C-alpha cells in the first residue's frame, strides 16, 4: 500500500484500515491512549505510541491493536473478551473508556512479560505502577485499574509468593 511518508500510525489505523479502537488523545505521546502492541522477533512484546510514530516505522513489524484481543465469531462479532478486558469491565475500571484501549494493551504487555517471568508478590505493586503508570485516565482515578490488574495477574497465576 502506498501511503504518505509522514503519515502517523494512528491515522493509518483509522483512515486506511478502519481500525478505530486506538484512541487519539493528546496527540503528543503523553496520554498513551493510542498505544498498540508490537511483537518483537525475540518473543517479547512492547507498547508503541501511534500518535507520535510514523506508519512507516511499523513496516515489517507484527502489530496488535485493541481489536485483536477478544474472540470473535465468523461474522466478526465479539463472543468473549480476553481476561484483562473482562476484568476491567467487571471491576468498573473505566467510565468514559477513552483511555481503556491503552490500558488494556499495557496490561496485556505486562501479562505477557510475567508469563515469561512471574513476579514475587512483594514487587507486584511496583511492577503495575511501572507498566501502567504512564497511562492517563481522567475518570476513575486509577485505583480500579490498579486493583483489576492486580487481580487478573493473580488469577492468571503470574504472581509468586514472596
Amino acid at each position, binding site marked *: 500500500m502506498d501511503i504518505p511518508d*509522514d503519515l502517523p500510525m494512528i491515522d493509518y489505523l483509522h483512515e486506511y484500515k478502519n481500525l478505530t479502537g486506538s484512541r487519539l488523545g493528546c496527540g*503528543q*505521546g503523553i496520554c498513551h491512549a493510542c498505544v498498540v502492541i508490537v511483537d518483537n522477533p525475540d518473543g517479547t512484546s512492547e507498547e508503541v505510541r501511534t500518535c507520535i*510514530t510514523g506508519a512507516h*516505522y511499523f513496516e515489517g513489524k507484527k502489530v496488535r491493536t485493541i481489536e485483536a484481543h477478544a474472540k470473535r465469531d465468523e461474522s466478526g462479532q465479539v463472543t468473549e473478551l480476553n481476561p484483562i478486558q473482562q476484568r476491567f469491565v467487571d471491576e468498573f475500571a473505566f467510565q468514559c473508556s477513552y483511555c481503556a484501549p491503552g490500558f488494556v494493551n499495557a496490561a496485556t504487555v505486562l501479562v505477557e512479560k510475567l508469563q515469561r517471568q512471574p513476579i514475587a508478590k512483594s514487587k507486584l505493586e511496583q511492577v503495575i505502577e511501572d507498566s501502567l503508570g504512564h497511562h492517563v485516565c481522567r475518570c476513575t482515578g486509577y485505583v480500579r485499574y490498579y486493583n483489576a490488574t492486580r487481580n487478573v495477574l493473580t488469577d492468571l497465576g503470574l504472581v509468586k509468593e514472596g
Partner: protein
Amino acid sequence: MKHLLTRLTLAVGLAAPLLSAHADDQVKRGEYLARAADCMACHTAPGGAPFAGGLPIVSPFGTIYGTNITPSKEHGIGQYSDDEFFAALTEGKRRDGANLYPAMPYTSYHLMPREDSDAIHAYLKTIEPIERAAPVTSLSFPFNVRPGLIGWNMLYGKALKLESGEGKSEAWKRGQYMVEVLGHCGECHTPRGLPGAMQLDKRLTGGILNGYLAPSLLATDLAARGWNQQDLSTFLKHGMSAQGTMFNEMFPVFHNSTQGLNDQDLAAMATFLLGDKPPAAKELTEVSLDKLSPSAQRGRQEYLNVCAGCHAAGGEGKPHIAVAMRGNTTLRLEDPRNLVRVIEDGIGEQKFAGFEHMQPMPGFADKLKPEQLTDLLNYLRQGWGGQSAELAVSDVQKLQADAPAVEHKAH
C-alpha cells in the same frame, strides 16, 4: 557630660541598625554569589534538603559525594571560621587540615576575593542546619590517600590565571569573573589530562562529562554554532533560546544558578564568552533534500518515523513540547557525540520558569539499528545543522560503545 552621653547613646543607637543593614546586605550578596558559584549543584542531593550534601559525583577515580555545607556543627560547616571557609573554597583545605578532592572547584574559586568568600559564608550561616551526615566518599587506592593531593595541588591547585583585562570593557571583566571563577564553567568545558587536572592550554575548548560533550565555549566555536550575545544570555536566563534548551548536566546549572542571575551579569558572561567584538553568528543555509547524501536522504524517513511527531516534519519544533531541530545547537556541533547520546538516552521532562516546560523525550537506544541511527544523524546534521561531513556507521558505533557504563538519564 550629659550632652556627650546623649551623643554617645545616639551613636550606638545608630550603629546597631547600620551594622545590621551591612550584615543583611552581606547575606543577600552571599546568597547571590552562592547561586552564581552554583554551590547547590553538588551540595544538594536530588529531592534532598538544600546544601545538605549527598549528591554522588561520578569521576574516573570513583564516586565523590557532595558534603553537607549547612551550618550544622556536627555534620556541616557550622564550626568553620571565615578563614577556614576561605581556605576550603580557595585551597581545598578542610577544617581538620585534610585535602578536599578537586571535585570541589577550588581550582577555579582560588581567584575569588576574600570579601566574596565571606559573603557566601555569611549567607550559608543563615540557612537551616540539617543534622544529617552526607555519605562518606571512599575512593579506591591510591586516590583515597588525601595527602597525595598535596603534590597535585602544588601543580594544579592555583594554575588557572585570569586573562589581563587591559583594553577590555567592564562587562568583559565582570563576565570573566562570573564565567571563570564563580561559574567555574571551565571545570567541565575544559578537557582534563591524566591526573584529572584541567588542560589549561586548551581552556574552554570542551570536555567530556559522563559520556557527553561539554562543548567548546570559544567565541569562534560559539559563533559557528549560531550563538550571538543576546541569544546566549537569553539561554542562560530562560534555559532556552532559538538554539534549543539546556539539557543534561547544564539543566541543573540553569535551575540552580543561571536563571537566578541578574541581566547585567548574564550579559557580561555573554560578552566575555563572545568577546567585546564578537564574531558574527554563522547563519544556516537551507539544504534541499536532493543535495543531501544518500544516507541523509534515507535518514529523512527515520526522522519522519520517530522524531517528527514531536519535533514537526519541517524540524520547526512545537512550543512547550519539543525544541526545533532547524539550527539546534546540538546539531550544529561538529562532534556528533551529544546528538548520539541524546537520541539514545532521551531527555526527562523539563520544567522552566513559570508554566514553561518541555515534554520528556524517549530514548531510542533499542529502537534504531546503527545503520538507521547513522542515516538519521546525517539527515539532522546535514539538513539542519550545517554540517557537511558524512558519518559512517563505524563512527556511530564507536560513539555508542563510548557510552557511560552507569545508566544515565539526561535531564
